[in-house]
């Protein structure tokens, strides 16, 4: 203040000081304003902090042996386990197998859920026919379906893929439906008055308008696919991340379990990031200022 305005009088200086005193607590409180943005550096350092403190708590807990080291291994033993796991071929076989199952089950969900969701969201007839049914199935816990799936499809690859399909399809269907319904009625009406037929309105307006939301629904449903692949592999499998975790637990190889969990978390994080950045790139036209 004083350096920029060298001619400041004593009264002004005290006024400026008062103002400064009045502003400082307010700027500090700004970080806790509802839904208000915070500076980027603060956001990034808070993210780092949360990971770092988790690490510190873990290190501290193992150092003082708060938990048996068999269940919560030390950072050093984790490091050796990681070195072992990442050099072994099995990890990549497991990742590949799980990826294949998630890919197949999820792709099957997507190709059916998107067209069907558009139909349900656009036509009351299809809504009446399918939505209550989908809601009903959605509430059946997926692991409870395992015996049925095994009876129906055996214990091979296909029943695992079907488990992922059941787990993601009905959720995704209802999310797509909701996105389609959110397309403003005015957009449909204006399309009709511009000469668009119903089919053209669906293809050129409903589909295009709902696309960003549907894409985000894919991101969420994709996460559940990874949950169900682990569930599927706990039953009967010869490879896969879930299968390997179960096997490690039989031999009490907890450090390796933790590494595999870490790998699962990382895969999720990377895929989520890819979905998000692809969404931003594909749908740059979305007006984020609008609710």
């Amino acid at each position, binding site marked *: 203040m004083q350096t920029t305005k060298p001619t400041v009088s004593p009264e002004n200086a005290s006024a400026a000081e008062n103002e400064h005193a009045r502003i400082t607590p307010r700027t500090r409180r700004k970080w806790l304003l509802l839904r208000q943005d915070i500076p980027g550096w603060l956001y990034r350092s808070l993210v780092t902090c949360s990971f770092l403190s988790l690490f510190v708590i873990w290190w501290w807990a193992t150092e003082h042996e708060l938990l048996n080291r068999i269940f919560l291994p030390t950072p050093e033993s984790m490091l050796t386990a990681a070195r072992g796991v990442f050099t072994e071929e099995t990890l990549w076989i497991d990742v590949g197998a799980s990826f294949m199952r998630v890919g197949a089950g999820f792709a099957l969900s997507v190709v059916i859920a998107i067209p069907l969701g558009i139909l349900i969201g656009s036509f009351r007839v299809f809504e009446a026919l399918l939505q209550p049914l989908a809601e009903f199935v959605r509430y059946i816990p997926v692991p409870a379906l395992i015996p049925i799936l095994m009876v129906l499809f055996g214990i091979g690859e296909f029943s695992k893929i079907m488990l992922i399909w059941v787990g993601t399809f009905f959720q995704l269907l209802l999310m797509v439906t909701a996105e389609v319904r959110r397309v*403003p009625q*005015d*957009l449909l*009406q*204006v399309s*009709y*008055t*511009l*000469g*668009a*037929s119903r089919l*053209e309105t669906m293809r*050129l*307006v409903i589909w*295009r*308008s709902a*696309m960003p939301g549907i894409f985000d629904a894919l991101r969420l449903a994709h996460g559940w696919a990874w949950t169900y692949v682990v569930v599927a592999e706990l039953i009967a499998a010869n490879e896969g991340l879930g299968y390997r975790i179960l096997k490690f637990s039989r031999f009490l190889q907890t450090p390796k379990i933790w590494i595999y969990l870490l790998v699962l978390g990382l895969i999720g994080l990377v895929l989520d990031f890819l979905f998000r950045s692809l969404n931003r790139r594909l*749908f*740059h*036209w*979305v*007006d*984020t*200022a609008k609710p």
Partner: protein
Amino acid sequence: MTLKVQQLAKTYHSRTGVTHAVLPTTFEAGSGEFISLLGPSGCGKSTLLQLLAGLDTPTAGSIHLDGAWVNGPSRERGMVFQSYTLFPWLTVLENARFPLDLEIHQDYSRPSSEILTEIGRVHSLLDLVGLDAFKNSYPRELSGGMKQRVAIVRALANQPKLLLMDEPFGALDAQTREEMQELMRLLHAHQKMTVFFVTHDIEEALYLSTRVLVFSARPGTIIEDIAVPFGAIRDPELKFKPEFIRLKRELTALLHPAHEANFDRTGLLRRIISTSS
């Protein structure tokens, strides 16, 4: 172009009872008219517009445009909404030529020279409304007034017989609103299309129209059909001319009868006087 509306009515049936949105209404309209539908909010003037667009079906009566019965939406009757209805995934130019692109796909037999002239027309309309520098912008980059200008150009791309406008400037600030009125005035003088313009703003109706249909409060019906005596070329100065003000006062009296204040005006006034003395 002649539009014949005969005994047109719309009633809504619900569990709580029957609502008469539009009472039987009859009127005619000819080429080049700029007709404002003026009335208090909720009087059914928007419903009438929806019926003219073919977006809603009447309970009784009929609409004929050049002898053809109106029974659904068509590119002959373009519409501009109060909400912003640009397609956000298309640029300004793509939005404006959307109806032409539809036509190209619907009818491959059309000569390409004809299509090129129409596309050229869209370009020159965009230039006319001052959007030449924004043809490749997306709607999210535009102000409210600019969005509505694109919407008007898009509706005009089809060269519709009727241009239906449902409070198109209702969401704009006062200054932009006046700019848009001026633009609409000149566009109408230039394009000579027939316009139906829903508004509850008396001044807007008078300044823009060649004819004002005044609606009563719900259930809505036309209580007055007024020819506006000003020429095609109007100046914003017109709003201060005695003739304009006289008409405005007349319409105000029609729309807001003095005795119809829905709060205790005298009681409030008395209280203000007693506390201030």
